[in-house]
């Protein structure tokens, strides 16, 4: 907890305000209590003066009972603990507490000590010297005592009683002690008040600071931290969405900028690397194929020359020569590709490509009485494609549709439109690895034509492979392994047996362990390991937001495809046309669309027709 900036800041601010409030509270309590005590002192002094003045007359008349009466009645007043008059030798002569009368007070007692500390008793005292604060018992209330010397005066020694000599200076003292319990109570009260205020202020300041730190610092920093973690996991598409206009906002902005640049650079590096190795491969293959082709071409063209007078041979040999020259052109284009080391993708208008493809097979369509209906969106943006390859795709699809329609005639409907899709339900996982970089893509097991993710399950001594849907969000997983998966089952990479379970994390829906797959360059794909939960998450594509596609649909009114055949139609060498086709047409289409990071799906109603749906993303990433 102390490792959080917010907490540290709050702590420091709280300590500082504690010190400031504490010091100011101390001084204010001090001055307040001083004020109160001096007020009490003044009051006590006034009282003492009043007592002395009011008893004076009775003193001179030596009316002891009356004096005692006055003292006693004064002593009954609230707060006044004790009023007594001591004579010169320390004997209590009058007291509000009658039981103390005639008792002797030691000269060292706290009421006498001020004057009698020295050998010769003092005669005059200042106000502060006359007052004292003491406690009768250690745990009783404080008491303020004030002594007022009663000085000898002419009326005293001339009185009838002749109790005092003329040469005496001090005749006795009046000692009034006043309880400070009220004062102490009010001091304590204000101390409590200040304490409460201090606590309230500290908590208040802390909360306010916590709120703003959370808003201005913690949350943005947390977002940044999360973003850096995403990037370190390889998700360079992650962008921080909400940005303030302060320094952290600027940091987030430049962070986004940086990851974007990094992502572009990596894409380029990846692309050029891929192209370079493809180029080397193509060049090697071309060289190897060209030598045997030379044999075929030279011998066949040689024979063609030698058999000029034999028209029967000529025809056949011409075919061989022509086809060999065609192969030569293919190899040459392979080499051209190797030389350029970049795909021939250019900005192109899909509609134009479709129209061109239609014009190529126009004749065949007319012969088969096939009409083409175009439902074209004329506002499609241009996208980067290899237009020759894309043309091949449409030619192949139209020819297939034509074949499916047969001799009876029918309609092919081509439609194009722009669509936006969320990654959830559309994004396909094409590369997934375990932590040791073993591929977890199973090319032998396909879900809706796409290679599935494979995971080995080891449970109670049995093991098997489960297959997960490679399309994010579709969740057409196959857990059919012939045994029930126990609670403590292990989910591992089939190659290295390393666990695929995400540690310290469970499915938020059902609490089962979560499987994590590293997707090359696109973060981590997480999915619940339970068959019954459909929880999955691929943060990196989620954070990239909506993706825009061009969707092309080719719909025919032909014979349709069997449900059994449907999953196989994109497999190489699978053909329903018997001898007529080589079964590569749709596989080639698949390859081309895949190369454009697009998808092709098929829907078919037997006897009614088939629809192929192609989606090509605007932005050719990966």
């Amino acid at each position: 907890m102390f490792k959080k900036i917010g907490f540290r800041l709050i702590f420091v601010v709280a300590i500082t305000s504690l010190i400031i409030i504490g010091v100011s509270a101390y001084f204010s309590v001090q001055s307040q209590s001083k004020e109160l005590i001096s007020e009490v002192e003044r009051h006590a002094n006034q009282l003492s003066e009043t007592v002395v003045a009011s008893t004076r007359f009775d003193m001179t008349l030596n009316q002891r009972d009356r004096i005692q009466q006055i003292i006693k009645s004064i002593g009954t007043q609230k707060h006044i603990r004790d009023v007594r008059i001591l004579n010169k030798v320390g004997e209590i002569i009058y007291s509000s507490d009658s039981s103390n009368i005639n008792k002797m007070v030691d000269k060292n007692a706290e009421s006498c000590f001020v004057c009698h500390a020295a050998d010769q008793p003092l005669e005059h005292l200042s106000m502060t010297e006359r007052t004292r604060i003491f406690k009768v018992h250690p745990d009783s209330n404080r008491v303020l005592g004030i002594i007022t010397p009663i000085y000898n005066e002419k009326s005293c020694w001339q009185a009838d009683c002749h109790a005092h000599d003329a040469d005496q200076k001090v005749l006795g003292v009046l000692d009034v002690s006043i309880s400070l319990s009220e004062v102490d109570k009010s001091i304590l009260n204000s101390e409590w008040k200040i304490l409460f205020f201090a606590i309230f202020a500290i908590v208040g300041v802390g909360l306010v600071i916590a709120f703003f730190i959370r808003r201005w610092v913690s949350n943005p920093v947390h977002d940044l931290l999360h973003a850096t973690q995403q990037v370190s996991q390889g998700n360079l598409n992650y962008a921080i969405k909400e940005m303030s206009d302060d320094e952290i906002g600027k940091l987030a902005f430049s962070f986004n900028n940086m990851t974007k640049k990094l992502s572009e650079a990596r894409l380029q590096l990846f692309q050029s690397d891929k192209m370079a190795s493809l180029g080397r491969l193509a060049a090697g293959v071309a060289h190897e194929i060209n030598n045997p082709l030379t044999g075929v071409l030279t011998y066949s063209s040689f024979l063609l020359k030698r058999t000029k007078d034999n028209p029967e041979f000529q025809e056949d040999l011409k075919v061989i020569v022509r086809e060999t020259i065609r192969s030569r052109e293919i190899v040459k284009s392979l080499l051209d590709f190797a030389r350029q080391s970049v795909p021939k993708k250019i900005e192109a208008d899909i509609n134009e490509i479709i129209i061109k493809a239609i014009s190529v097979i126009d004749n065949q369509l007319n012969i088969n009485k096939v009409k083409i209906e175009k439902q074209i969106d004329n506002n499609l943006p241009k996208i980067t494609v290899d237009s020759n390859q894309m043309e091949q795709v449409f030619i192949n699809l139209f020819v297939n549709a034509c074949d499916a329609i047969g001799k009876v005639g029918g309609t092919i409907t081509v439609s194009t439109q722009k669509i936006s899709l969320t990654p959830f339900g559309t994004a396909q996982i094409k590369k997934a690895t375990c932590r040791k970089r073993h591929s977890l893509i199973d090319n032998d097991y396909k879900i809706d034509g796409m290679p599935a993710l494979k995971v080995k399950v080891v449970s109670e001594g049995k093991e098997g492979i489960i297959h997960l849907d490679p399309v994010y969000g579709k969740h057409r997983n196959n857990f059919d392994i012939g045994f029930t998966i126990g609670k403590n089952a292990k989910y591992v990479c089939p190659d290295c047996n390393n666990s695929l379970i995400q540690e310290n994390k469970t499915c938020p829906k059902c609490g089962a362990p979560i499987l994590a797959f590293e997707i090359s360059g696109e973060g981590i794909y997480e999915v619940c390991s339970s068959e019954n939960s459909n929880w999955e998450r691929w943060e990196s594509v989620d954070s990239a937001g909506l993706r825009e596609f061009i969707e092309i649909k080719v719909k025919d009114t032909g014979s349709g495809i069997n449900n059994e055949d449907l999953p196989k139609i994109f497999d190489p060498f699978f053909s329903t046309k018997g001898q007529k086709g080589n079964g590569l047409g749709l596989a080639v289409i698949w390859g081309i669309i895949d190369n454009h990071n697009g998808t092709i799906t098929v829907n078919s109603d037997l006897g009614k027709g088939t629809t192929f749906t192609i989606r090509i993303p605007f932005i050719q990433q990966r």
Partner: protein
Amino acid sequence: MKKHTDILVIDDEQVIVDAVVKICALDNYTVDVALNTKTGLEKIANNHYPIIISDIMMPDGDGFEILEAVKSKKEDSAVIMATGFSTVENAVNSLYKGAVSFIPKPFTVDELLSTVYRVNNFQKIVEKQKVLIQQQKNDEILFVACPTKYLRLGYSTWMFQEREGTVLVGMCDIYMKTIDSIQQIELLNHEEEIAQGIACASFICANDRNHRILAPLSGRIVEVNETIKNDPNLIEKDPYFDGWIYRIIPANYDYEIKYLIPCSSDRL
């Protein structure tokens, strides 16, 4: 006792060697063979062959070694480079290093025979010139050398950069002297791209001989000489000026002229 052989073919593939022998026999050439660089070099050292057809990539060496060996000999041989690894660099580079022609594999009988025919004629002209020089008949001209400011790709095509930055492309006279008169000419169109070392036109001559012309420079064609379409013989008559073929905007001028030979070097 040296028996005369017209052609030496060096290639590590038996089938290709055999095919070349058979094809050349059609035009009555005698052919000797070598199945690797080593025997090839030995044979070149011991005999004289007017024409040598060599593969570029062989297990024990490359065709450029053969080219070096031929150049260091006193007697002239014309070398045709043939390779299945027909990258532009190989083609252009072998022409730059002195090969008279380049033939990409796989080739047809006609392509090989056309090339050999051309190179054989080339060889004859070179020898004739030698004789003339020996006889000090310097004023008799067998072919017109290309103008000094021109650059040429081997002995086939030239290019000349005009003031505006555009480049003219045409045929060297010596090439025209090695072929029969053009019967038909196939050209690319305006706005098409040409690439250095890749065929950009073909001349169809007598006996179905089809001569493919390699572009000296890459670029985009901005103008095709319309007059030569109607009158291909203009190329033979005035190959360096009125007989130009294309006007192009070069794509990679500075890089590509490294492989071209300045015509000024012919006049030393």
